[in-house]
């Protein structure tokens, strides 16, 4: 008992200063739920930790921020990091724009900045950083290296701030692993980075069985530093996001849904360390009745569009009961189709051509807005897809009118080198109002080296998605968080002069010609057969005794020979007309007229 008291005293002592310092690292949990026009339900979790750590040496003592994240900042010159692990396809036309866009498979993007940093240092740090996070997130990110990473020039701009007056060299690296699968083994370590772990609060809603049966699910991680002056007085922002799109029809119950039906259980309270724990429900689709009703409603006007959100403050809930929200189709409303206009910009990508010699990659970007939009288009083509940039064509297909070709304003192209670096293409052009731009270029199918084929070579090889960035003048369907803010709630009423948008195309699968993998086996079999066939006769000639039968009275005429052959067997059986003589081998060659037969000895 005495010991117990002692321990409690000790904990209290340790907690008191930490509790006070807690003010400078704050944790927020948010859940955003929106029924989409297609009848799907988009759910978005965001866990934000913001830590004013001040000077660099304070990174050794972490509180709410997970230790590996702080140590990453100590080890590498990374200032901003985005990791996405996604399965499924985000359908822009029906889902609208996601809060955080992510490419299918794994995607990593990082900014490095430090004095005297060179590109070679960054290459080294980049592979090590990917390898570190491969261990943290149980993903195969260690396959990221120079051969599949690019350095985008126009697509990405830093969202970190060094605060340094001097011009510190900055480097960006980007890579995708479109083949990467996302499963519980990624969700588990991702949840373990949260301060309240996985059994409490919003994270308890992320149960593997209910995350992986969705139409689309994406785990995200974002980290950035904001410094007042160079490397001193800094803030570290660490955001973990999970985005899932459910199909309520598959969940049964006539399109009605609830937290329990979506996530398998109700919400068991909030994280005690969180400064805010809120659920935001989009109320634009009025065909649902909510029970219980939101605690309060809030309206967000952004970029010319208005949305209403119902807010549930989980910290104000009391009682031990699991909290549940149900969306029930209104009885009095006629079954209505929500007339959400499609988002202003979306894109698709295909592989054209037939055979296994030449092909064409085509990307179609559609602008549904009534103004021209500036576009930055980025392609990251693996080294095993030799592309021909002289065949690059940008064709505008207006919704009414004749199609015509345009030239990009700026083109940044780094040709790939086999086994060394990928093909990297960035195009800047303007997409006219109400039209589609088709970007196409040709490529060759090539054979790889024997050992470069994966064990399932016939499955095909993946090409990561292209990234399209633009600046929208309107905020319709737009939910991204403004760059100077960090919470989802900060996107409410965040009217700006323009809205930076990032969208991604589908990833592609390419059936490269595969060699006959059983060829070595066949060669061995064939060679062995040939050797066996050659060896057999030589062996028997060398080891067997030759018996020469000499016959008397050989007939000289053809008729006589034939007759003799026919009747020889009978004569042999009778055994009185032939005389067997054993002779030496050398004699064989001298006896031209001798009839030779071999016997096993």
């Amino acid at each position, binding site marked *: 008992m*005495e*010991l117990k008291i*002692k321990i409690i*005293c*000790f904990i209290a*002592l340790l907690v008191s*200063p930490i509790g*006070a*310092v807690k*003010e*400078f690292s704050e944790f927020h949990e948010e859940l955003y739920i929106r029924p989409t026009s297609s009848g799907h339900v988009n759910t978005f979790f965001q866990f934000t930790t913001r830590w*004013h750590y*001040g000077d660099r040496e304070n990174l050794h003592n972490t509180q709410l921020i997970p230790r590996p994240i702080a140590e990453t900042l100590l080890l590498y010159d990374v200032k901003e990091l985005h990791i996405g692990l996604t*399965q499924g396809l985000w359908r822009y036309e029906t889902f609208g724009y996601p809060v955080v866009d992510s490419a299918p498979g794994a995607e990593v993007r990082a900014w490095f900045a430090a004095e005297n940093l060179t590109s070679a240092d960054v290459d080294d740090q980049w*592979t090590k950083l990917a*390898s*570190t*996070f*491969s*261990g*943290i997130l*149980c993903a*195969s990110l*260690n*396959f990221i290296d120079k051969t599949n990473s690019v350095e985008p020039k*126009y697509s990405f*701009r*830093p*969202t970190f*701030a060094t*605060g340094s007056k001097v011009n510190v060299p900055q480097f960006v690296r980007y890579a995708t692993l479109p*083949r*990467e699968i*996302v*499963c*519980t*083994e990624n969700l*588990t*370590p991702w949840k373990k980075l949260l301060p309240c772990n*996985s059994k409490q609060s919003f994270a308890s809603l992320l149960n*593997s069985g209910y*995350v*992986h*049966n969705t139409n689309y699910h994406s785990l995200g991680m974002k980290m950035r530093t904001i410094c*007042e002056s160079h490397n001193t*007085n800094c803030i570290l922002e660490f955001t973990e996001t999970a985005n899932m799109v459910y199909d309520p029809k598959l969940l049964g119950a006539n399109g009605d849904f609830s937290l329990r039906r979506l996530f398998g259980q109700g919400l068991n309270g909030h994280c005690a360390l969180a400064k805010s724990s809120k659920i935001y429900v989009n109320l634009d689709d009025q065909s649902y009745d909510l029970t219980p009703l939101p605690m309060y409603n809030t309206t967000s006007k952004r970029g010319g569009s208005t949305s209403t959100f119902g807010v549930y403050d989980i910290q104000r809930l009391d009682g031990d009961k699991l909290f549940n929200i149900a969306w029930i189709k209104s009885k009095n409303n006629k079954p209505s189709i929500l007339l959400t206009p499609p988002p202003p910009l979306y894109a698709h990508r295909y592989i054209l051509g037939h055979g296994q010699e030449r092909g064409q990659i085509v990307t179609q970007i559609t602008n549904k807005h009534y103004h021209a939009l*500036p576009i*930055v288009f980025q392609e990251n083509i693996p080294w095993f897809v030799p592309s021909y940039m002289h065949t690059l064509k940008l064709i505008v297909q207006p919704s009414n009118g004749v199609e015509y070709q345009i030239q990009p*304003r700026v083109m940044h192209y780094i040709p790939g080198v086999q086994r060394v670096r990928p093909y990297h293409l960035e195009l*800047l052009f*303007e997409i006219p109002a109400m039209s589609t731009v088709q970007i196409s270029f040709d490529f060759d199918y090539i054979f790889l080296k024997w050992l470069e084929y*994966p*064990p*399932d070579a016939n499955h095909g090889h993946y090409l990561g998605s292209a990234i399209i960035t*633009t*600046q929208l003048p309107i905020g319709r369907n737009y939910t991204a968080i403004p*760059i*100077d803010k960090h919470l989802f709630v900060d996107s409410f009423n965040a009217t700006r002069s*323009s809205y*930076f948008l990032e969208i991604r195309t589908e990833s592609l699968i390419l059936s490269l010609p595969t060699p006959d993998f059983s060829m070595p086996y066949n060669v061995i079999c064939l060679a062995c057969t040939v050797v066996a066939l050659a060896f057999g006769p030589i062996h028997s000639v060398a080891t067997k005794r030759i018996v020469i039968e000499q016959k008397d009275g050989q007939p000289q005429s053809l008729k006589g020979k034939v007759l003799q052959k026919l009747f020889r067997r009978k004569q042999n059986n009778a055994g009185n007309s032939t005389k067997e003589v054993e002779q030496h081998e050398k004699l064989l060659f001298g006896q031209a007229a001798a009839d030779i037969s071999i016997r096993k000895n």
Partner: protein
Amino acid sequence: MRISRQTLLLLSMLFCIYTQIAGQEQNNQLPEKYVESVQRSTHTNNWAVLVDASRFWFNYRHVANVLSIYRSVKRLGIPDSQIILMLADDMACNARNPRPGQVYNNAKQHINVYGDDVEVDYRGYEVTVENFVRLLTGRTQNGTARSKKLLTDAGSNVLIYLTGHGGDGFLKFQDSEEITSQELADAVEQMWEKKRYNELFFMVDTCQAASLYEKFTSPNVLAVASSLVGEDSLSHHVDQSIGVYMIDRYTYYALEFLERVQPNSKKSMGEFLQVCPKRVCISTVGVRKDLYRRDPNKVPITDFFGSIRPTQISTGRINITLEDEEDFINAAIAAEEEAAQRSTFKVEFPSQFPTELFK
């Protein structure tokens, strides 16, 4: 009467000889203390390397095998940081799996061996012979994440479990390469030379599994295989809803046994080695004990499958109060007030879009 006397004489003589031999035997035995000290476990930590070497959906059973062992060692106390799990393919989130995120050991869905809390260290294309041998011998490439290293020492009891498709003297990895029994034996020998294990339990469930431990020469290795050379290891049953075999026989019965083991249980390795008799396994389970100095019947199963460490409880008091407790707290509060003043500052972010190029 005469006959009976003779018999009596003979019997008494036999008895004399017997007692003599028995006495001699007693004298020849090792001192009890020594036997006990050999029998006593000397390990300080436990590690597990669990490998599924085969890819493709029809090899679902191999993933179920390896996850069964993973589940057991994790339940018995080996932390995730000391389990290296290698899965060559993803079955849980495979598009063919009607129950996403779940892998079962049984068509009746008794145990979800994949669970809700799993960490796979090597997956997909990472599962190669090279990576496996590098892992065992500790020769991982520079920059490898900590969770992908086998950080064992001379006090580690290591459990190595392999499953996949094998033949006489080899085990296939991902249908594209194979590890031979000689390579395996060399890797274990190198582990011993580098003092990377205290005792090693090698367990393999594949066809002709016994051929894989034949070349071992390193000490303190106990090995068990699901089938002898020339024998096939067989699968247990098929689940019609997924269309493939669920699990292999040997591991199925091993899991059944391990499910009854608790961290404090008295079950021994000897019992574990007899977990699958021939009438249920169909193949003959092979055991190699000649390199192992302890009697498996006296080795607790938790020496390899759990992580039980001898703990000493001290009842003495330790004074851990800081001398300048108040100063410490005041300094912390002051520092934080100062930081509060510095925490609000203005930052300018660069424009996110190259608008200047479109003018």
